[in-house]
């Protein structure tokens, strides 16, 4: 019992779990909404996007944190941006080489991770003032928090919008024969807006109850 208390109260654990729930980048901080609308039609693209962003934000936070005492203040943001941009392009290259179909679907959105406020936000507010290990965990948590929301939205949209999960049909043909129809609206970006809105509402309501 004491041991688990120690782990859950350690700073590392908190750093990692805060952005998963209580301080989630999308549902609480409202960052990275743009890509969340675009890549959540299918679970697969949402997961790959979540993993790519996690990779970028974790490593950029760690690298920036390693350099935090050496970066000249007047070119601070430029240096942060070059680190982030390099990692994003690396992730994009790897996707193009090994996950070609997914990279085609994600198209510009992997590249746009560079401008995703979550990455720059974590670098500025956390990595510059904390040691590399914690910065890495913070990035990992933020990326995972983003990925979890993306996957949840994509789950709802793929299930209702095309009757599939991870590309496999889950709604039996007999339902369609009986007159069931996929909700075409779920395939469009506004649907993601509404789902994210509902998720924010749900999370706020739950956290209020806990007090």
């Amino acid at each position: 019992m004491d041991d688990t208390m120690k782990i859950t109260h350690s700073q590392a654990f908190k750093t990692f779990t805060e952005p998963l729930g209580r301080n989630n980048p999308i549902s609480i901080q409202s960052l990275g909404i743009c890509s969340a609308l675009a890549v959540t039609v299918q679970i697969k693209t949402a997961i790959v996007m979540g993993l790519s962003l996690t990779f970028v934000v974790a490593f950029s936070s760690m690298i920036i944190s390693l350099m935090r005492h050496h970066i000249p203040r007047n070119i601070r943001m430029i240096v942060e941006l070059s680190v982030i941009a390099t990692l994003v392009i690396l992730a994009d290259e790897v996707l193009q080489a090994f996950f070609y179909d997914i990279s085609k679907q994600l198209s510009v959105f992997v590249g746009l991770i560079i401008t995703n406020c979550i990455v720059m936000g974590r670098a500025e507010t956390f990595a510059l003032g904390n040691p590399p290990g914690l910065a890495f965990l913070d990035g990992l948590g933020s990326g995972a928090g983003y990925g979890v929301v993306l996957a949840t939205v994509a789950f709802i949209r793929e299930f209702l919008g095309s009757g599939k999960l991870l590309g496999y049909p889950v709604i039996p043909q007999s339902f369609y024969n009986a007159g069931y129809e996929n909700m075409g609206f779920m395939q469009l970006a506004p649907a993601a807006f509404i789902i994210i809105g509902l998720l924010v509402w749900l999370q706020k309501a739950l956290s209020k109850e806990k007090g």
Partner: protein
Amino acid sequence: MSDNLKSVLFAVATAIICSTLLTAAALGLKPYKTRNLVVDKQKNILKAVGLIDANKRYSPEAIETLYTQNIKNLHAAPDGRILAENETQEAALSLWLYMVDEQPQCYVIPINTRGLWGPIRGYMALEKDGSTISGFTVYKHSETPGLGGEIERAWFQKNFKGKQITDVTGDFVSIGVAKGRVADTVPDPKQANFVDGISGATLTGKFLTEGLKVILHEYEPVSINFRQRKVSTQK
């Protein structure tokens, strides 16, 4: 060391390290990316002739095998004659033949035209009668997702199958994208020359119609030869 000098040196060092990393990654992964492009091209040709199902997944090896077994990449002279395998000629047109029992079943022509926001690239397969479209695919475009971007979706491409590039008298008219549904907007005798349009993407449809007309016109000599049954296996 002055602060400014330190900033400049730091910036230069960051730039060198980042660019070295990126160059290494780009060079190291190039063979994989090139192969992906080749396989993707083969996949789209196979999709145009109907050999693979757009909804199923195929391994790169399976695609390469299907492609080498069924498809021949040849050239046609400007007069429409299909050149033998090793023969080349200036101003020759590139095309692919889907061979069944050594006889061409379909011929596939490359589509390279402009859309509203950038180039549209794909393939159109025509049956050996020289006028019936047997498939159409798009593998690259920059149209707006959900609007013009629908040209890459199966529902749009499926509409091309069975349409004609000739009118009822057999003269070339090309294939057009209608403004809205064909059944509502196109008079009866011309319905075979139009596919359903995409709502909210009139301009993409207009550019695609114009581009297809130019390309099909360019390949018309080949199509005429097919229509007149002049094409067989010229060994």
